[in-house]
């Protein structure tokens, strides 16, 4: 039953991925600017630009370029990024874990704070705690992440000197762990190198806090709203009337029912945060995929943009599948036969 369900969702994902590939190809070609001119160099003349254009295969008509691109993709060749000079696949393999590690840590941190806050606010709507919770999370989402990031660097690194220098994933002091997963925390733990683990964790603190502050609001707000709705529903009233203990009502019944929209939000926040932590990455010199994509887009680096979007799309499809399965676990009312 479950296996069929997973199979069906995977089948649905195929048109999505195909659509993404096509749209990305068209979108990159619609970008202004000529990568051949950009990458031919400062003093290149007409002839050398033409030479570069031929080398990049940009002299062919668009349909032919597309066919070549798809053919390369099917062979597992995602092309070469012009701005880093590396194969896109190896760029992504190195940068995706960096972004994932940061985003996941930030979301964990965020959930640990936001869900209890949301539940607390919902159990006493209109109280001072509710308002305080609202003020706190709203303050977090109201500030652009790069602003929060620079502020944290200014206070904790520049003024107080208790944070390490904001220079990427590891200080110079540490040896990069042997890559297994690409997550420094996991890799160093696997290698039993706790000093490096500590070093990587320290580098994570400020950027993760920056991201967490920004993602508190959607999670806390959705938890509150969903809890309010769940608490006012008939079955809770029934449970109350039946005299079940308060804690059991809130956490056992209401929260379980409220989790559905919370999980939806979490999934959205995750993909949103992963794509949007560009500016945090820039501020903390974090070698992730967000800054990679923006640089590529500004430089009209087609292969890098396409590779990035495709990787994110695949990730999103996987994530979606997990969320849908969670739905089925959390809320038996939702049916899959309709889709």
């Amino acid at each position, binding site marked *: 039953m479950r296996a069929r369900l997973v199979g069906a969702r995977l089948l649905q994902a195929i048109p999505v991925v195909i659509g993404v590939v096509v749209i990305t190809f068209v979108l990159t070609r619609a*970008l*202004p*600017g*000529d*990568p051949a001119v*950009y*990458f*031919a*160099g*400062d*003093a*290149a*003349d*007409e*002839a*050398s*630009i033409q*030479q*570069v254009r031929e*080398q990049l295969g940009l002299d062919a008509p668009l349909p032919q370029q597309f066919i070549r691109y798809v053919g390369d993709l099917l062979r597992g060749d995602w092309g070469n990024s*012009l*701005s*880093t*000079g*590396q194969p896109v696949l190896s*760029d992504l393999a*190195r*940068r995706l874990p960096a972004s994932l590690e940061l985003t996941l840590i930030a979301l964990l941190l965020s959930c640990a704070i936001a869900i209890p806050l949301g539940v607390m606010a919902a159990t006493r709507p209109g109280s001072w705690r509710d308002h305080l919770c609202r003020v706190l999370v709203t303050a977090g989402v109201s500030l652009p992440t*790069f602003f929060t990031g*620079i502020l944290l*660097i*200014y206070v904790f*690194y*520049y003024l107080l*000197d208790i944070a*390490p*220098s*904001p*220079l*990427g994933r*590891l200080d*110079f*002091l*540490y*040896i*990069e762990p042997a890559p297994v997963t690409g997550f420094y925390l996991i890799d160093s733990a696997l290698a039993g190198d706790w*000093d490096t683990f500590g*070093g990587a964790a*320290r580098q994570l603190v400020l950027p993760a806090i920056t991201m967490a502050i920004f993602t508190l609001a959607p999670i806390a707000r959705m938890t509150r709203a969903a809890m309010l709705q769940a608490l006012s529903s008939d079955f809770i009233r029934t449970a109350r009337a039946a005299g079940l203990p308060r804690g059991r009502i809130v956490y056992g019944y209401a929260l379980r029912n409220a989790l559905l929209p919370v999980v939806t939000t979490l999934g959205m926040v995750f993909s949103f945060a992963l794509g949007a932590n560009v500016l945090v990455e*820039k*501020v*903390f*010199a974090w*070698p992730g995929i967000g*800054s*990679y994509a923006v*640089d590529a887009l*500004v*430089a*009209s680096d087609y292969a890098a943009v396409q590779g990035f979007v495709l990787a994110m799309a695949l990730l999103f499809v996987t994530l979606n599948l997990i969320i849908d399965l969670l739905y089925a676990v959390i809320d038996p009312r939702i049916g899959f036969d309709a889709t």
Partner: protein
Amino acid sequence: MTDVSRRHFLQLGAATASALPFLRALPAHAQSGDVLVAVNGQTINSLDLHRTGTNRPSYQVAINCYDRLVSFGTKPSMGGGLEFDYSKVEPELAESWTVSDDGLILTFTLRDATFQDGSPVTAADVKWSFDRAVSLGGFPAVQMKAGGFTRPDQFAALDDKTFQITLDAPSKLAIPDLAVPIPFVINSKLAMANATDDDPWATEYLHLNTIGSGAFKVARWVPGEQLIYERNNDWASGPVPAYKRVVIREVPSAATRRAVIERGDAQISFNIPSKDALEMSDKMEVNSTPIANCINCVGLNTKFEPFQDSDVRKAVAYAIPYEAIFQAAAFGRGAPLWGEETERSEIAWPRRTGYVEDLDLARAHLAKSGYPDGFEVPFSISLNQLDWMEPTALLIQENLAKIGITVTIDKIPGADWRTASLVEKRLAFHLEGFGGWLDTPDYYFFWAYKDGHLFNSSNYRNDEIETLVDNTLHIPVDDPAYAPNVKRMFEIALDELPRIPLWQPALNVALNGASDYEFWFHRQLDVRPIKPA
């Protein structure tokens, strides 16, 4: 982190690294004196300058890891520290050289030097490297052409130590063009061992490996993160550098770079904003060297009708608030190019133009022109150079509004900027900041004022300039015709004003814990002379 734990990790790191056969990470903290940490904002995208698509920040690899035949001398700089001296060509890999009487044959004798794999540097390596520079096309070929090097048959290895170049015509630019980063010498045996039929010049191998005879080699390179140089203790072409390792860290945010250099976690911050340069100069050594042969200017495209009118161009020139721009966009760093004109008997370059901010004069010129009621024009600036272009554009926009010219500002993405401004030359009104590597005014005019040439973003054409530049470009500076020709070029350019010079920009470099920085025309960090402070 406390000092104690820092030291602890230092020892720990050093111990672990010495146990490793190959450098996997940086063991010691920078302040130990062996390691230099430099931060910059840009990505190095290749270790091979000749490869298609290699960007400007990558040129430093060619400078630090490879030798050229010759180099320039140095002189004290008005911006602090030393800068290159275009008038003095000095030996690098070549011990000595001779030029035939007709100026056509250049013969170089190589010094005893070895590549980093221990094999000797021979004239055959030089020939292979030069052949590569003119054969791969793109920017390297264009730059080689400026010195008169276009074909492999111009280069010959007479014996192991003697290398000869035959020019088609004598040129004063030939030898200086051998000191630019492009003609660097590669270990040809190693390269050819890694070449394939599809890739006879081993571009894939050289993209990832530095195989030169230079002062450093690249021990580790992670694009987007860092590049680590390791010293070559057997470097023959100059004094062995003070630092064993140099870490170039990529930090995109200028604010973060400033925090890091101020805290002393990096010793060099390269190409910092002028504002930071001004404010940090009392806390640490900051060099602000006006960039030789480089001018930030306003381009008036002759394809845009109103700018065909000489009075309109003069009106614009008198309406520009030069001083305010120089303060807001450059914080007074660099050299002003407006105001009382440099004596025309001087051939110093860049020079002051004689134009000043004078709105009455601007209005008078506009009234005389064919557009007394003004006109509308888009003003284009590059997204990649917003730091100086945006304040400049805003101040010009404000003043032009006062004389009746309505300006809207267009920000153009980096990828489109070169296409629009230099290749298609379709921007009516824009900013431009060309700087020539070879430091003579005629070289600047060749690129920026000759019809169809790349940096002539104004589509300017003047027949007299065409002949003057052609006649002047290759003759020696002490030729009797040289000075009069150059003066005539200045006269025409200042009267016709297809480009309105604003100021000569400076390259700002902050050093905290290091010294002996040298400014070079290529505007990249040459780490070889740097020493701990």
